[in-house]
């Protein structure tokens, strides 16, 4: 097991190194940067700034500097906001996490319950309806459903605020503050849940259908166990087990924010930070963000693997 982990860790490091090079090159190759895009600056001033930020150095040297700093926990300095990238991440990431955590929880909860029930009642009208809704949820363009719900629920009916985290100019504190945030969260959380719940429900439904057919479910019934026990003790555990591998894959979504949703709902998260930095070509921040997601993806995959090995008694020994 420990040699396995060592191997995985080495491979992880190699992949991340390659990813960093690719990400760096992509952004570095993109013509135009924060300085050239700024029309207020004189050519002399631009050259001076380039010198300061090291933008006139050869590509590889710049990469080496970037990586060296990254190893020391320094992901650079945001040109647009004049603050360290990591500090900015720290400011915004928790807003993203709040949104993602609530919607991930809702998504999993709904998916497990609906998936199990519809698998158990396979071919019933309920199951067919669930299948249709699953496909609908999987086929929604994220930005469109966001806009559509804002239009209907916020603009037309005025039930929920259209965006942001707080009402503009609000300085609520304590409970009032929490209430206001929840009020603003509702719409983005609903949209994110709708977008995620389709494929996950389908996953649990398929797993459960597969498990119900197994011999050991027949054994459990032959023992005279109550149907609830057969379902929740014998079937559900086996159906949930493979889902453990998905937990790790949720990691980038939990901390990486959602570019589209946060942009549409004007939610002050890391995804929106990326989108606004994108239009001004704030490269240190953009690279830092992309690298952050890559790191989260790799760690998430590792966690998934390890969890799978821990959870399944059949592979636990190896």
């Amino acid at each position: 097991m420990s040699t396995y982990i060592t191997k995985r860790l080495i491979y992880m490091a190699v992949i991340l190194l390659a990813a960093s090079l690719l990400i760096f090159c992509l952004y570095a190759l993109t013509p135009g940067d924060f300085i050239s895009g700024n029309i207020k600056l004189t050519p002399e001033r631009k050259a001076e700034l380039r010198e300061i930020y090291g933008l006139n150095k050869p590509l590889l040297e710049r990469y080496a500097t970037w990586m060296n700093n990254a190893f020391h926990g320094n992901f650079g300095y945001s040109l647009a906001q004049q603050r360290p990238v990591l500090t900015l991440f720290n400011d915004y990431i928790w807003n993203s996490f709040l949104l993602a955590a609530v919607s991930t929880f809702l998504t999993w909860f709904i998916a497990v319950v609906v998936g199990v029930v519809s698998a158990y009642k396979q071919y019933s009208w309920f199951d067919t309806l669930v299948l249709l809704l699953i496909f609908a949820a999987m086929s929604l363009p994220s930005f469109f459903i966001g806009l559509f719900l804002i239009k209907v629920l916020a603009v037309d009916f005025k039930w929920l605020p259209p965006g942001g985290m707080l009402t503009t100019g609000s300085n609520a504190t304590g409970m009032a503050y929490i209430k206001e945030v929840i009020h603003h969260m509702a719409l983005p959380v609903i949209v994110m849940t709708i977008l995620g719940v389709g494929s996950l429900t389908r996953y649990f439904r398929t797993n459960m259908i597969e498990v119900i057919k197994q011999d050991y479910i027949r054994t459990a019934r032959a023992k005279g166990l109550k149907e609830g026990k057969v379902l929740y003790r014998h079937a559900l555990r086996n159906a949930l087990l493979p889902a453990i591998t998905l937990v790790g894959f949720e990691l980038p979504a939990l901390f990486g924010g959602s570019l589209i949703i946060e942009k549409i709902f004007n939610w002050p998260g890391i995804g929106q930070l990326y989108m606004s930095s994108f239009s001004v070509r704030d490269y240190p921040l953009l690279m830092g963000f992309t690298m952050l997601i890559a790191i989260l993806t790799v760690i998430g995959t590792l966690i998934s693997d390890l969890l799978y090995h821990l959870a399944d008694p059949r592979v636990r020994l190896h």
Partner: protein
Amino acid sequence: MTLMEPHTARAAESQKSETRYKKPSLWKQALRHLLRNKLAVSGFIVVAFMFLACFIGPLFSPYADNKINMSIMNKPPSWQHWLGTDKLGRDVLTRVLQAGRISLTVGLASMALSVFLGTLLGALAGYYRGIVDQIIMRIADLLLTIPGLPLLFISGALLSEWKVPTDYRMYIVMLMLSLVNWPGLARMIRGQLLSLREQEFMHAAVVLGLRDRRKLLHHLLPNLVPLIIVMATLNIGGAILSESVLSFFGLGVMPPTPTWGNMIDAANNMIDFQQRPWLWIPPGLSIFATVIAINLFGDGLRDVLDPKLKR
């Protein structure tokens, strides 16, 4: 001591019966099963309708020339303009259908390209294994590590900076989508190939001393066809969605070439968003209807072609 099932007798019998009447081919059987799946059939009908409407519909529209007519700009739906007009006085319904042409073409073409790349690279990796496999799959791993959306955004920005003419952007968007999509497909094809290799009939092919190319072309690839068809179908929906996101954010196909995604861009204008929903809701619903129909059809295909794949 054991009473064996009369395998040999049964095999002989089935051979006899085969000469008596020809069993319907596997493809015909699959088609019959598919026709029984109501959701898949309705999916197919909707997709077919969308294609016909988008590719033939504009021919019957009196507004297909997109003449700018300021006197009728931003009019709500009426008998003359079923879905109203936009800020240049163009008929929205006609625009939606014309946009559908582009969106469907981008979806189809980028699917074809990513399926081609994915199958080729996945098959090479799975068949030759060793160093070829290592190189291809490590590249795939790398691409899967880097988040897709930022990758697409950067590429979209590159296009804008390089001042790619808007006419060509459409083709480059297809290319971009395929580059992001192939690793997942390649992984799947490779996995399937590796498991096929281990099966009895491949051992037989090895024992018979067949050549590499023959083994790959005549024995392995035909077994991958159902998987490829299913993946291809489901991939179109994904490609249409990705294209719409890119174009919505102004990084994909750009106006004046209309696509469903960049038409929804109207929603970025506060007044259009709040007061002129006919500008951006129809293209959104078109994406939704097309993608759900493709997915329902693809899922039906998966059921009949490759039940093992069900996920």
